């Protein structure tokens, strides 16, 4: 197909948004998404590969897992594991650009500290910035991190009284979990700029791809008042698993819960309210984008994708935000894809396991652009067409080497079981069909030894196939109940 006939592509990616904040689950008011969902394919089992923005976004753009693209945690912190992608890693936007697409980038990138979207051929509409390249030399990290502490009046002493929504940590900046604010994280401005870009974009024969990335509903949850007013605190309940003491789970999970224990139950509920309202705010912004498309008369020629980079615990097990606690809510994201035209799935749910690694091959296939390489995800086009392939994946895998600080973890999940290998503590095994909230860690129970072996088999095969090298057999670190060697079986 000539590039002139290809559809446009609009992607709206929020940050920290769980799957159940979108249709059909609708824990939050999302009138624009509800309307949008009537014409979209709704993926109910979509997952990101890592519990953090940077690796997940890198996976979104490359179709590869963190072990393959090299982005592990926050690319901007001094102790980052990676400032950017491995050399010569292609993004799907490279293929689009080469095929003649115009590329527009508005909002959050956070894929690399070595390159900006402009370095990849995107026109950055807002914000526009450059980054300081390290040129590959090994230099000590710039200790600018200390500026957060030095001479800052916001550092807690430990004696001050705790006010609502605050978490006091002596020697650390004061943390306030929620509040009221207009234009939080500048998201309003980002979308305003995106809307202007859409309306003022010059007509051309060449189709466009526009990525719009907001920061909401990322913590801390500061939301404009009119969205908070849409919710009633009486209707907000704590999640069932809030009271999980996590005695049988890694000590690190309990430690993070201890922080949040400073908040009262009412404050947790208010946090939930703020989070829901934040999702409604993001839905409102999404609505603005769709309105702009409609106004411009481009809605019929544009594929629209709504998704997020990872989830948020939102009070589950007493936790917030995301991190090493390997609960599904940190990974389970919304994914809605609306294609123009009358064919394919519209307004229906697709329950197959999908991951952000699927986006690259999907986008390329939807736009009929051939790639010169294979991806670690699958194209979702057969699912979008209404097919139900029998050989679809039956597991979801996650990879993290720790957010901000470090910790090795790999997990594999089927519809029935979830196994988490922790390099920093004991492992976890959950029987999801009986224990969907992951309350009871069955690791160590000899009755499930067979299951653990099978899950280890899957985990290490995935590791082998995706070039994972966190497999050192040194006696002090190699603690998996069944190590990587089990995947190579004996011949008789």
């Amino acid at each position, binding site marked *: 197909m000539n590039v002139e006939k290809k559809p446009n592509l609009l992607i709206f990616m929020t940050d920290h948004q769980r799957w159940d904040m979108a249709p059909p689950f609708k824990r939050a008011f999302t009138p624009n998404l509800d309307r949008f969902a009537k014409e979209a394919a709704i993926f109910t089992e979509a997952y990101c590969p890592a519990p953090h923005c940077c690796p997940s976004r890198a996976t979104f753009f490359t179709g590869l897992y963190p072990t393959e693209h090299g982005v592990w945690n926050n690319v901007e912190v001094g102790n980052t594991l990676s400032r950017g992608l491995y050399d010569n890693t292609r993004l799907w936007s490279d293929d689009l650009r080469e095929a003649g697409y115009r590329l527009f980038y508005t909002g959050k990138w956070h894929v690399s500290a070595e390159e900006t979207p402009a370095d990849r051929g995107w026109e950055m509409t807002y914000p526009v910035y450059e980054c300081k390249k390290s040129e590959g030399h090994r230099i000590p990290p710039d200790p600018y991190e200390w500026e957060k502490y030095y001479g800052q009046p916001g550092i807690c002493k430990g004696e001050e009284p705790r006010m609502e929504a605050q978490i006091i940590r002596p020697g650390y900046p004061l943390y306030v979990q929620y509040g009221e604010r207009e234009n939080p994280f500048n998201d309003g401005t980002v979308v305003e700029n995106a809307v202007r870009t859409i309306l003022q974009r010059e007509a051309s024969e060449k189709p466009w791809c526009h990525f719009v990335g907001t920061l909401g509903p990322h913590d801390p949850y500061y939301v404009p008042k009119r969205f908070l007013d849409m919710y009633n605190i009486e209707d907000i309940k704590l999640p069932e698993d809030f009271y999980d003491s996590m005695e049988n789970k890694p000590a690190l999970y309990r430690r993070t819960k201890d922080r949040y224990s400073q908040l009262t139950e009412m404050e947790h509920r208010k946090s939930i309210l703020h989070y829901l309202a934040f999702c409604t705010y993001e839905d409102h912004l999404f609505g603005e984008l769709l309105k702009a498309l409609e106004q411009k008369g481009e809605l019929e020629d544009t594929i629209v994708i709504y998704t997020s980079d990872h989830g948020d615990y939102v009070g589950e097990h007493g936790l917030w935000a995301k991190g090493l606690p390997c609960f599904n809510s940190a990974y389970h994201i919304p994914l809605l894809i609306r294609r123009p035209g009358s064919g394919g799935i519209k307004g229906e749910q697709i329950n197959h396991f999908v991951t952000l690694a699927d986006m690259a091959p999907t986008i390329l296939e939807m736009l009929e652009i051939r790639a010169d390489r294979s991806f670690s995800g699958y194209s979702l086009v057969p699912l979008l067409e209404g097919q139900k392939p029998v050989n679809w994946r039956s597991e979801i895998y996650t990879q993290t080497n720790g957010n901000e600080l470090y910790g090795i973890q790999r997990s594999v999940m089927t519809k029935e079981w979830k196994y988490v290998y922790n390099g920093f503590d004991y492992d976890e095994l959950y029987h999801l069909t009986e224990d969907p909230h992951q309350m009871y860690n069955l690791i160590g129970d000899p009755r499930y030894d067979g299951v653990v072996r099978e899950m280890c088999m899957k985990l290490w095969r995935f590791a082998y196939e995706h070039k994972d090298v966190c497999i050192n057999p040194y006696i002090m670190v190699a603690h998996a109940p069944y190590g990587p060697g089990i995947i190579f079986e*004996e011949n*008789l």
Partner: protein
Amino acid sequence: MNFVFFFPDEMSASSVSCYGNPTVKMPNYDRLAEEGVRFENCLVQNPVCSPSRCSLMTGLYVHNMGHRSLWHLLRTHEPSLFRYLKNAGYDIQWFGKNDLYSQEYLDEICGDIEEKRNGYRTRPSRKHGHVHGWTNPYQLEDPKYYSFLFSPVEDDGEEAALDEEIARAIDYLNNWKEGDKPFMLFLPIIMPHAPYDALERFHNMYDPALLKDHLVQPEETSGKPSYVELIRKYRRLDQLEPEFMAKVYATYLGMNSYVDFLLGELMNTLDEKRLFKNTTLIASSDHGDWYGNYGLVEKWPNAMDDMLLRVPLLIKTPGNKAGHVVGEQVELFDIMPTVLELAGIKAGHTHFAQSLVPQLGGEAGDLERYVFAEGGYDNQDERCFEYQPRGNGLLNEKNIYYPKVMQQKEYPQSVCRTTMIRSLTNKLVLRTSGENELYDLVKDMKECNNVYHDKGYSEVRAALEAQMLRWYIRTADTVPLNDDYRSFSTRGM
């Protein structure tokens, strides 16, 4: 004289192009047959990997040293071909699996044993990757789960990836120069051993629809030992259609074409380096595979069908009679004295193999020669049974060998000690369980009808039994070549 010993695992002669298989394309094996010498009837001494290899490298039968299982390998007190070569100044370059020597013996033979144990630090230059044995597409509940038919291996459509071992071998040949030590390049690669899969373009090379009638169906046989039915039951093969077995056959042939491609890459390198003028190339295998015949797959420790025992043997050596075919029977372990003679080395122990050098020069073989094979184990051979716990996960029902080990556990007699004697016209198989076989290889080449109890063959049977007894007397033991001092004497010390 250098040696390249190309030794794919589990390749039956009947599945090779130049041995008359009507379907498979193996142009490099064909070239080897045209330029070298082909042995039409080469029989191995045991149908299982390690026992066959132990015989091959010693020139001794199973009954001499008791190598009956995968876990009883050559120990340092035993002689072997590679020790003779090494002591004569050869560089033993080994790229492939072990299943031959004990750990201590490996230390003596392999210069790169540390890399073999801990992993090579460098990658081979040629494109290589995972080429075999990866994904079982069936669920455990599906009878096909235990069939050994796996999914095709991902193929990027570009240059075919080499087996990593062959890629290393090619690097070795490319780096070798005149003045370096002479080499024995030993290439015991895994394919076409089950599971049945290969790079997609090879996996799907042959059409199963055309192959269904080429397989011997179980209904066409009579008098086969009980292990046949048991294997079919345990492995759930009796629930599979002949069309499925044809797929197994087609995939197995695809694997052979891939192995042929690897041989081609080796031969190209030998051509480019002009090494053929002082190198002998040997291509053979340690045993075969049923690949769907008789409704069976892979092999069985005491089965003596030609499908499992008859392997290709092709040898190209400078000055040989090109295109010569030897129809008379030879035994796999004849490779040992053949290599020794070509290298100008004498064996330091009594053995029963015969050098094939005269045949390489164009002579015929020995029409009167009988060949022998042994296999299986009885109660006294406790450690041989494949179900013995060795921490290798075989007793897990998800393991593809689970049916095999369970059958041995529950029906130990079905894998009992067995001995075979074969002439060009007949084959006799005797078992301690009493399930004996006799085949008229002239009238019944495919060994469908067991005539052991047939009165018409009682003379043939008696003659073969007598020959087998004579052979046991002749080869039961070997005497050391050197003497001991008889009396109490300091001179003996």
